[in-house]
């Protein structure tokens, strides 16, 4: 049976039921419920001692870089207070401001533990003057700290940089700042010789990019700054190919060295700017006759002996050749 048929079936019954519903009585009932709630609220607001518990977030500011806290710092204070019902009602709807704790100024005043009247005073700044502070937790905040040693470390990239098809990383990745300061115990600092970034993967980079990277955290070591800018130079590259001869040097005058194949294919990537300047003559595969003469095999591995420094991804094919000595 479909929905429409069901509705059609039940519609007359529903209509008959609601036409006989005692709407008037219902409205009177609702009116008195609302009235009772209003009276309850008035009584609540006039009550002198209503208790409520709340939390106040803490924020620590001006923390010197070369210190480490001996105890973990709490991130909130839980308070129990009493006040008039109306005030407590307001607390429930009030946005709670954080308490900023200025570590530097407390250290200047030689304060190690925030407690007693200073602590209460601090809490009081965030509650109404009429409120009675009954309890708070933690009862004290220890800001006791130890002095750390420091060491400047070079930032080293850890991760992957993947460029778009026509682009390549043109140079080494540099950082801003290039060094960060590591704070920690002398012993621990001795084991560090660089600040390594968190493993980061940058995909499909098409142009030179400046990206945020975090320094990989190490327990007991604080890095300042903990984040650096990575500058990744990207250039547009294009593939180029040449066929170059396999040559031999130091061969005696009466010997001709023949290679099979006699030519190799060189493929490489160059920036668009360099593309036109690079010529086949810039690449050489030269083998030494003395080396060929020494080997027992008739095959020798090939590698480029000369190539321009500004090209990337150089490949030669084939990577080996056979050779014969021919008497002239």
């Amino acid at each position, binding site marked *: 049976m479909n929905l429409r048929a069901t509705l059609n079936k039940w519609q007359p019954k529903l209509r008959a039921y609601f036409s006989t519903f005692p709407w008037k009585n219902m409205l009177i009932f609702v009116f008195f419920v609302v009235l009772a709630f209003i009276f309850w609220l008035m009584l609540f607001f006039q009550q002198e001692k209503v208790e409520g518990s709340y939390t106040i977030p803490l924020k620590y500011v001006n923390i010197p870089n070369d210190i480490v806290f001996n105890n973990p710092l709490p991130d909130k204070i839980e308070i129990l207070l009493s006040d008039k019902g109306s005030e407590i009602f307001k607390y429930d709807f009030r946005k709670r401001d954080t308490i900023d704790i200025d570590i530097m100024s407390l250290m200047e005043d030689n304060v190690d533990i925030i407690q007693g009247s200073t602590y209460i005073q601090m809490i009081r700044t965030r509650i109404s003057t009429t409120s009675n502070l009954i309890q708070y937790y933690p009862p004290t905040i220890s800001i006791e700290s130890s002095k750390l040693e420091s060491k400047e470390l070079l930032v080293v990239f850890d991760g992957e940089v993947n460029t778009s098809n026509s682009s390549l990383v043109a140079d080494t990745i540099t950082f801003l700042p290039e060094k960060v300061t590591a704070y920690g115990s002398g012993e621990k600092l001795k084991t560090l010789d660089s600040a390594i970034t968190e493993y980061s993967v940058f995909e499909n980079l098409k142009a030179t990019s400046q990206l945020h990277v975090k320094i990989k955290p190490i327990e007991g070591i604080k890095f300042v700054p903990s984040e650096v800018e990575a500058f990744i130079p990207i250039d547009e590259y294009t593939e180029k190919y040449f066929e170059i001869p396999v040559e031999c040097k130091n061969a005696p005058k009466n010997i001709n060295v023949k290679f099979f194949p006699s030519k190799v294919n060189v493929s490489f990537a160059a920036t668009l700017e360099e593309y036109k300047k690079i010529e086949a003559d810039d690449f050489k595969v030269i083998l030494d006759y003395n080396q060929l003469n020494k080997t027992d095999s008739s095959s020798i591995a090939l590698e480029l002996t000369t190539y321009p420094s500004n090209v990337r991804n150089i490949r030669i094919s084939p990577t080996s050749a056979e050779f*014969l000595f021919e008497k002239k």
Partner: protein
Amino acid sequence: MIKVGITGGIGSGKSVVCELLRVYGYPVYDADDRAKELNNTSPIIRDKLISHFGKDLYPDNKLNKKKLANIIFTNPDNLKIANSIIHPEVAKDFIKWILEREKYAIVFMDAAVLLEAGFNKILDKVITVYAPYTLRLQRASERDKTDIKNIAERAKNQLSEEERIKLSDYVIYNDDTQSLIEQVATILRTLCNE
């Protein structure tokens, strides 16, 4: 005189083997190069191609290769016709070529389509240069600076390696595991002793 054909699939390394044979002092007839030459110079080829595919094929008395490629690679029947015109002329040219080299005990013919063109009928022995399919594709793609897919497409039109080997007297394995020089030297020794 022993007439030996060298054949092999695309990227198999026929030309390296032929290079080696030339170093050993044997004459090698390059059928592909000669066919290109004959397409322009042979009046028989020219007249027959024109009668089948039209006068436009030879503007300024020179074969328009692009046009011919378009005609034969888009229609297999046209390819058969063109081959039936060109291959017999290449065979005749080879016979003429060997007559000028009578002093040699062995002569070679390098042709990619040696078996497909039926050149084996005028040869005494056939050598196939073999390399695994993927290696051939890679070599040819690097040599011709083209996509492996294009090479694979071209390889499709060639005889399979199995068929080629079946129709050959010798096989040279150019798969970077065996020395080409040694294999060629062995075959030459065998041919000289025949």
